[in-house]
């Protein structure tokens, strides 16, 4: 008996069909990977299943019985729980309070039975072999621990189906391994798991079957051991990608950026490196190794405690992002939604934000010039939108990234720092981003790329710096670098 069958699901939004007669099924104790480019309909399908959206037509069967799901509470009652990428816990409450939020066990007198609440919490957590103290506040937990709490919460609902949306996006390698153990245990309990991810390696490691969607339509479903990585990408994208990484080598020019003994107390220590025109320098390391913090120091977002920064041989004083931008340094932050874009402003306004001086006519913004400039970048970078006056909230992850990049191209950046440039971006758009990075390098711009995806660093970078606990443990050249060497350095070893 199938655990879940979704049949001919259709969901229409004004002007667009997000799901077009999509089929999906899930067995007990199965991890079923759901994959597709952004906008392919994965999230919408899962929202329909978890009650966040209501379908226009189609049927959902749970254990062969047709069910009606019109809101999240219906879904919860049926044992369908979704764990979102941005976890949905209340940071100021304790672990136990979060697990039982809204259904706290009560004593006879109507007050909360705290002992029972915490005992039950421990019961669920220990099933997941976790020793998190249920009295701890959620805000003090790591992302990985918060995920465990979400799973425990799901268990407390007697979940039959757990949907995980990019669960490993913010986890370290070790934490991923822990999560996979938990998933294995959930399988042994006959719970079905729908697993959404863009990371090819882990899909094969954790998944049993895969369903591929494209443009709101069902494309393919099969066992994972019957399909190759290339075939998956091909079916997702609907076209051939020559290679996953379009690496190009450019003539290394003169030195653009030199960092000497840069430190910020308790965060990073004595970082020194040089960066040349046309060079792509990667930064690898575990989460918390200090890579993002280093980027923020160079960009002036945080204050350094000591060290020097030279641009084209001249020492520069950078005390704010405004200083950095004036000197031709750009940072594409890890979280483009919170730290990159003004989501309710248009593409045009976001692109020109850092260089309004470039489109001023006297005291006023020259809207005609703004239109010309942004239209040009929009075409160059192939930003897919009906209009440059569209608000950026309506764009996909890849297109949002391009808008931020356009902003930094318009400031005439000489050094561009990408922090996790392809996080949450689908395969097709990733490839585009790599090509855009190549274009920057070709123009003589120097690029730094921070990434947690080793294949991406190995595939694209000329040189990789590996960080561990706030220090650079070593540099690896493109031709010598391997996953093993990076991991040895990243975990504090030497080679």
């Amino acid at each position, binding site marked *: 008996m199938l655990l879940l069958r979704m049949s001919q699901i259709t969901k229409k939004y004004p002007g667009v069909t997000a799901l077009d007669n999509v089929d999906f099924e899930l067995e007990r104790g199965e991890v079923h990977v759901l994959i597709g480019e952004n906008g392919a309909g994965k999230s919408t399908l899962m929202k329909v299943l978890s009650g966040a959206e209501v379908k226009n037509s189609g049927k959902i069967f749970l254990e062969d019985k047709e069910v009606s799901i019109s809101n999240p509470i219906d879904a919860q009652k049926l044992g369908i729980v979704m764990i979102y990428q941005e976890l949905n816990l209340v940071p100021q409450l304790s672990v136990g309070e979060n697990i039982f939020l809204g259904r706290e066990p009560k004593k006879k007198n109507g007050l909360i039975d705290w002992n029972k609440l915490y005992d039950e919490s421990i019961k669920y957590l220990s099933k997941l072999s976790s020793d998190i103290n249920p009295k701890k506040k959620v805000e003090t937990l790591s992302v990985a621990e918060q995920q465990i709490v979400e799973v425990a919460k799901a268990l407390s609902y007697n979940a039959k189906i757990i949907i995980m949306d990019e669960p490993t996006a913010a986890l370290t390698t070790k934490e991923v391994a822990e999560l996979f153990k938990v998933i294995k245990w959930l399988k042994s309990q006959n719970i079905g798991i729908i697993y959404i991810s863009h990371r090819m390696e882990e899909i094969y490691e954790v998944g049993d079957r895969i369903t591929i969607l494209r443009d709101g339509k069902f494309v393919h479903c099969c066992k994972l051991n019957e399909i190759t990585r290339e075939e998956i990408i091909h079916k997702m994208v609907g076209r051939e990608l020559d290679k996953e990484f379009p690496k190009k080598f450019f003539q290394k020019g003169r030195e653009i950026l030199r960092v000497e003994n840069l430190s910020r107390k308790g965060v990073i220590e004595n970082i020194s490196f040089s960066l040349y025109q046309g060079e792509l320098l990667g930064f690898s390391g575990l989460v918390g190794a200090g890579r993002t913090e280093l980027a923020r120091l160079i960009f002036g977002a945080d204050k350094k405690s000591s060290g020097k920064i030279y641009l084209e041989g001249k020492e520069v004083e950078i005390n704010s*992002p*405004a200083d950095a931008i004036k000197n031709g340094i750009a940072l594409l932050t890890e979280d483009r939604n919170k*730290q990159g874009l003004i989501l309710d402003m248009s593409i045009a306004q976001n692109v020109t934000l850092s260089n309004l001086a470039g489109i001023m006519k006297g005291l006023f913004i020259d809207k005609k010039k703004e239109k010309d400039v942004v239209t040009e970048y929009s075409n160059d970078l192939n930003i897919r939108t009906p209009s440059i006056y569209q608000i950026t909230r309506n764009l996909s992850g890849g297109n949002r990234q391009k808008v931020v990049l356009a902003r930094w191209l318009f400031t005439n950046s000489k050094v561009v720092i990408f922090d996790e440039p392809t996080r949450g971006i689908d395969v097709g758009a990733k490839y585009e981003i790599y090509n855009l990075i190549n274009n920057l390098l070709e123009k003589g711009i120097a690029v730094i790329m921070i990434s947690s995806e080793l294949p991406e660093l190995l595939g694209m970078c000329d040189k990789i710096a590996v960080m561990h606990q706030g220090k650079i443990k070593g540099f690896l050249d493109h031709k010598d670098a391997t996953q093993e060497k990076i991991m040895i350095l990243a975990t504090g070893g030497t080679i």
Partner: protein
Amino acid sequence: MKSISELFQRFRQYVMAFLLLVEILFFAVLSEYFLTPENLLNITLQTSLIAIVSVGMTMVIITAGIDISVGSVIAFVGVITAGFLKFNMPVYFSIFLAIVAGLFVGLLLGYFNGFFITKFKMAPFIITLVAMSILRGLAYIMPKFFGFEEGRPIWGLPDEFLWLGSGRILMIPFPTILMFLIFIVAYIVLNHTKFGRYIYAIGGNLEASRLAGIKTDRILIYVYMINGLLTALSGILLASRLSSGQPNAGLAYELQVIAAVAIGGASLLGGKGSIVGTFIGAMFIGVLRNGLNLVGVSSYYQEVILGLVILAAVLLDQIKVKD
């Protein structure tokens, strides 16, 4: 694809303008005096003081801030200005000095609000609540320093000063003219200058704005200073209209000002709002008050009706959030 929310957002101003028109027609039917030029000018005059402050408040609210000290600033500046007018000096010189002093105090108070908000990361609501309390108290205390009794108004201001609040140029009241000028300038600033763009950006996403190279602290302080300046201007005009510096002037002004901005469609969450919307919002309230007065509805009922109007306007905006 244009979502329904965007369409609504785009047409909101037209909807509000249409409703304002309906409101005007409604009162025109009920009172034959309502549509006379004299009454219409009167409405703009009565509304001008609140409308001028609501321009500054619109900017503050777009940055995701709030300033509830405006009522107290109006009283405080009114008292200071009136006090300066009591100095023994040539009359035009003392008027000039009093106005400059009043405006300067407004700028300074705005600066303090902005300073505490940016440097000490205080919630705008709290710091302006502090200012609201302190300044109201000082407004009562200040008359003592100008030779008047504590808590009493400073009265007996020169006739030349009274022109500011009630004088007319080509039949049009001076405050009305000032109000229109300020709205036009603010419209240009918000829609066509760097500064205006930055205000929207900061309200939309403070951290992203900083990382885009905007000197966010400085812009925020400017915004509160502009609000302080416009509030002070309103305070001076009110002192002129009342021909005295009243310590209890401007009570509950902040509520009317915020109401005008909210009816105008600005979001208290920041990033959204428009000068045209605020103008319509302020006029909507002004017409309502004037019309209800003419029809003979008591001020107690007016408060209830005003509250319901704000509720309706904000409900209208919830349509777009749900979409």
